[in-house]
C-alpha cells in the first residue's frame, strides 16, 4: 500500500503549515521534496513519524512500517561512540554497525565520540544509523550537508542499492543533489505547503553517471522552475 496524505490540516498558532494537503506517493523510488526552507516540508515528513500530529486528516500506508530517518540535525548521543550510536538502533548489533560505518567511509573512526568527529563525519554516522535500522521507508532531511561530492555519491549508491523496492523521501535545497538522486521531484511552496510542479527523472544512476548531459538537463529543469521570484 502506497503512502498517502489525505486532507491534512496543521497549524502552529497563527501559522498554517498544512491546509487541506493531500498527496499520494509511489510505492518505491526516491521522491525528492524540493523547496525553500520554511515551506513546511520537514513538518510534513515529521507527520509520517508521528513526531508532529496533524490537527485533522489522515496518513495511510504507514501502518506497521519501520521508518528510518536522517534528521536535519545529526541527533547523535554525545556520550557514546559512533559505533554505539549506530548499534543502539539495531539491538546492539556492533558487527552491523561497523559494516555500515565502513560503507560510509568511517572505517577506523568507529570508537570515536561525536565530538571527536568533523561535521561531515557526524552526518555520515547519522546516515549509517538510519541505514542500519533498515526501515521500510527512509526519510532523509538534507542528509548530505558537509559531504563532498564523491562521498555523497558513494552514500547515494548504497542507499539506492538497499532501497531499490522501497520508498525514499528526500528533502534538499540542492538542485545537483536532486538531479543525481531523485526519481521524482516535487517542487514545493508554502506555507501553507502545496505542490507547484512534479518532475519525473527516469534515467538510472549509472546512466546519469555515464552521461553528464542527463544530469545537466535534470538540474536545469529544476532550476528553471524555481527561479527566484521577487514577490
Amino acid at each position, binding site marked *: 500500500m502506497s503512502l498517502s496524505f489525505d486532507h491534512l490540516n496543521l497549524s502552529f498558532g497563527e501559522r498554517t503549515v498544512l491546509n487541506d494537503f493531500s498527496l499520494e506517493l509511489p510505492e518505491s523510488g526516491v521522491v525528492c521534496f524540493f523547496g525553500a526552507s520554511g515551506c513546511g516540508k520537514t513538518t510534513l515528513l515529521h507527520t509520517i*513519524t508521528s*513526531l508532529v500530529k496533524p490537527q485533522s486528516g489522515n496518513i495511510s500506508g504507514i501502518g506497521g512500517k*519501520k*521508518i*528510518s*530517518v536522517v*534528521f536535519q*540535525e545529526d*541527533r547523535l*548521543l*554525545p*556520550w*557514546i561512540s559512533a559505533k554505539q550510536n549506530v548499534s*543502539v*538502533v539495531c539491538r546492539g548489533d556492533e558487527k552491523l554497525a561497523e559494516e555500515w560505518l565502513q560503507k560510509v567511509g568511517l572505517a577506523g573512526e568507529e570508537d570515536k*565520540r561525536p565530538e571527536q568527529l568533523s561535521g561531515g563525519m557526524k552526518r555520515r554516522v547519522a546516515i549509517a*544509523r538510519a541505514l542500519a*535500522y533498515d526501515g521500510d521507508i527512509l526519510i532523509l532531511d538534507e542528509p548530505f550537508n558537509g559531504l563532498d561530492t564523491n562521498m555523497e555519491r558513494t552514500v547515494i549508491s548504497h542507499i539506492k542499492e538497499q532501497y531499490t523496492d522501497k520508498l525514499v523521501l528526500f528533502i534538499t535545497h540542492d538542485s545537483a543533489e536532486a538531479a543525481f538522486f531523485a526519481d521524482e521531484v516535487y517542487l514545493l511552496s508554502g506555507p501553507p505547503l502545496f505542490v507547484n510542479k512534479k518532475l519525473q527523472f527516469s534515467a538510472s544512476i549509472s546512466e546519469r553517471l555515464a552521461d553528464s548531459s542527463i544530469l545537466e538537463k535534470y538540474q536545469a529543469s529544476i532550476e528553471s522552475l524555481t527561479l527566484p521570484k521577487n514577490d
Partner: protein
Amino acid sequence: MMPSTMRNKNNSKILKILVSVIFWLAVWQIISMIIDKVLLVPSPLTVLAHLYVLLATVDFWQITATSLWRIMLGFVLGTVFGVALAVLTSTSKIADTLISPVVRVVRATPVVSFIILALVWIHSSSLPIFIVFLMVLPVLWSNVTAGIADTDKQLLEMARVFHIGRLKTVMKVYVPSVMPYFLAACISSIGLAWKSGIAAEVIASPRIAMGTEMQNAKIYLETPDVFAWTIVVIILSLIIEKILVKLFKKVSIKYDV
C-alpha cells in the same frame, strides 16, 4: 616533563593551604591571648591537647562512627528518595501537582523547625537520620527534575522514531543527561547533610552522638571540647566530600560530563 610539573603544581597547592592554615592559627592564638579566657576562646594548643585526649579514647571512635553512619544513611536515603520522587513528578502530572509543592515547602522550612517537631514523633537516635533525609531530598529532587526537563528533546524524538525502547531510552538518553545534575546535587548536599545532622544531634541528644558530646561540653563549660569536636566534624566533612568528588570523577569520565 609532565609528572614534575604536576608535582610542582601539587606542591604549590599544598604550600598555599599550609600558609593559610598557619596564618589563621596565628590569628586564633593572638585572639585567645588577648581575651585570655579558656572558657570563651581556648588557644589552638589547648584545643589540640583536648583533641589528642579525645582521639585516645575508645568512646571517641564509637561516637564518631555512629554519627557518621547516621548521617550517611540519611544522605543515601535522601538521595534515593529524591531521585525517585523526581522521576515520579516528572512522569506523572498528578504526582507533580500533589508532591512538588510539598517538597518546595520542605526545602523552605528552617531545619530547626523540623528538628523540634520531629523530636515529638521520632526516637532521638533516629532523628538525625530523618533530618538529614529531609535536607538532602529536596536538593536531589530539584536538581534531578531540572536535569530530566533539560534532556534534549531532539534526542528523545530520535529514540522514539528508532523504537529504541523505554529502558534503553532511560539508560542511553536520560541517565547521561541527568548525571551532571545528580552529581552536583550530591556534592552540594553532603555538606548540608553534615551540618543538619550534627545540629539535629545537638538538639535531640541521642545517647551516642557527636552532637550530644558538643552539647554536653557546652553545658559543662568545656569550650575546648566544643572546638575539638567541631574540628573533627569539619575534617570528616571535608574528607567525605573529597571521596565523593573522586568517586564522581570516575562516573563523570564514563558519561563524558
